[in-house]
């Protein structure tokens, strides 16, 4: 078994499920012969043909709306927005149709679709190619939002997303698409869609994060460990519906919580976690909850882009301030 990158794990999951379930189809711009601009669909067109790996006209509204139609008629579409910054025309179809199809037809019709998109900044990309906008979808009822941060979790969670009977926005942190490799057995084993992943056990402070910031957060935990501080790191890979129990259990143990998100601060998904901690764990807290996030600004073009993404030093600093507070 060869070690693979996160993006190769995406391809592996798509290929596995297309092979085992004839109703799975892939559609989007450049997903066919070109194999996707990041190569997520590399080789799938050769394996499964142009009708199951379907190059669409250049229109995100078309892609999302056709996906809804496919899903409502018994197919399992996995469509792609080429970048998260181009997903906005899809929002009407996702919010008004995909997410509420089951509810508005009292279950007569459903939308078992996956809306994939590369997500986030940090790759020196042009304008509109570097957004962290998951919070726009986490407030939509009836929709799952998934954001894996390792090859194994990308594989297992994408399989789960495709098999799930409801629509899923599946964001892939492009900054770590090829960051490292790990062995991911192609065994078709899905991961649960409603469970946070505890990546590191700790007793002094809980660091909660998701997406590409998992790397910086783990590095921060390493740095804190050198100073004798034991940090627990939680990857909220399935943002909604949220598995708050895992977070609550950790915060009850450590009494301290720092949330790390790439997106702008205000009304980001970290705000939801902070509110839940306040609602359910406030008497366990020894210090106020802290957030480390992007600033409330548009992702700068790449010369200043890294100043928007929380780095390890900022996370360490926030953790220490939290510990100093109580």
């Amino acid at each position: 078994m060869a070690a693979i990158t996160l993006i190769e794990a995406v391809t592996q999951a798509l290929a596995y499920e297309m092979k085992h379930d004839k109703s799975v189809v892939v559609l989007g711009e450049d997903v066919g012969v070109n194999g996707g601009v990041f190569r997520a669909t590399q080789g799938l067109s050769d394996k499964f043909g142009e009708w199951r790996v379907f190059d669409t006209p250049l229109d995100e509204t078309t892609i999302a709306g056709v996906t809804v139609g496919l899903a409502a008629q018994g197919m399992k579409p996995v469509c792609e927005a080429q970048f998260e910054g181009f997903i906005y025309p899809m929002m009407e179809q996702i919010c008004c149709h995909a997410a509420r199809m089951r509810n508005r037809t009292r279950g007569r019709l459903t939308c078992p679709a996956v809306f994939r998109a590369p997500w986030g900044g940090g790759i020196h990309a042009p304008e509109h190619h570097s957004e962290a906008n998951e919070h726009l979808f986490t407030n939509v009822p009836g929709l799952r939002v998934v954001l894996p941060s390792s090859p194994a979790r990308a594989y297992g969670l994408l399989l789960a997303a495709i098999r799930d009977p409801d629509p899923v926005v599946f964001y892939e942190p492009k900054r770590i698409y090829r960051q490292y490799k790990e062995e991911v057995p192609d065994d078709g084993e899905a991961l649960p869609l409603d469970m946070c992943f505890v990546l590191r056990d700790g007793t002094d402070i809980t660091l909660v994060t998701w997406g590409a910031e998992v790397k910086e957060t783990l590095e921060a935990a390493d740095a804190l460990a050198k100073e004798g501080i034991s940090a627990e790191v939680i990857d909220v890979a399935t943002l909604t519906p949220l598995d708050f129990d895992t977070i609550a259990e950790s915060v009850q143990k450590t009494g301290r919580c720092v949330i790390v998100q790439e997106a702008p601060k205000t009304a980001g998904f970290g705000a939801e976690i902070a509110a839940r901690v306040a609602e359910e764990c406030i008497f366990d807290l020894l210090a106020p909850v802290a957030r480390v996030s992007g600033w409330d600004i548009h992702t700068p073009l790449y010369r200043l882009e890294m100043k928007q993404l929380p780095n390890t030093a900022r996370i360490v600093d926030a953790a220490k301030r939290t510990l100093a507070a109580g």
Partner: protein
Amino acid sequence: MPIAAKFEIEYLQYLDAEGKQVRKDLPEFAQDIDQMVELYKLMVSTRVFDTKSIALQRTGKLGTYASCLGHEATHVGIGASMKPEDVFAPSYREYGAQLYRGVRPRDVYMYWGGDERGNDYQNEPAKHDFAWSVPIGTQCLHAAGSALAFKIRKEKRVAVCTIGDGGSSKADFYGAINVAGARDLPLVAAIVNNQWAISVPRKIQSGAKTLAQKGIAAGLFCIQVDGNDIIAVKKAMGDAVERARAGKGGSVVECVTYRLGDHTTADDARRYRGKDEVEDAWTKDPVKRLRTWLEAKKAWNKKKEEKLQAECDEWMDNEVNTYLETKAQPVTAMFDYTFAELPADLMKQRDEAIALEQGSH
């Protein structure tokens, strides 16, 4: 049988692939050989600029860049058909049109080099044009809105947008031409059909025989031109712009050309298209075509070509150096254009970011 509607789409070409004149009725501007030489010079300048841009990207001095190789006649022709007071809403590749309107290579480099100041065009008339629009097709509606503003204010101005063959599939494009037709807005939508939307070929982009005819459904004038023949582009675009200015309706002009380069420097077109096709497209090169015609008219020669190349090199050296010498913006620039006045809450974040820069946090 009663017919509810009928249409046909004219195809316009003056110079064939070999640079031979195929029509006798040259438009007036094309009979002014000095003007044609000026257009040729800008086409060559555009190509020199494009070549330099690719070199900068390949040596790590520029981010992702979208080449305009092969589009010179279409782009320059579009720019040259507009008046200064008109408004241009480009996508992200139409440098030939923009250079005509005062955008500088250094502006292009700043933008693709990761610096927002590239969008802050300094020269008129580009200064009142829209900035590059990367989200495909969205600029068509901005042009329609501009055209509506001109109509409301009774200004004799025209809004021109450019869109690719792929972009003409987007809802934004259809919405723009629809409202323009419904309200007789002075809008000209130029479809730059370069045959490829990244890896997706024209034939599976649309079942329509021409992309120009999409405008028929919207009630607009429609024409298809050889986009590698600048005389045809400027004639059709010029007529469309002046018709719109006169209040006689908007147009869709499809310029049929070919993307000789990759979609952007992040793309490798060899993955999805054959060598033969590209080699064939090179035989229709718009720059060589005009040069052949000008040479036949004794208006151009090797000596002039050498002089022009030297001038272009000097111009580009100056632009590139200016770009490379420009320092990154301070961290405060990330905040300062978010609102007209920075809200207090954001001011706190700005202070925090400054403190982080100074390492005093």
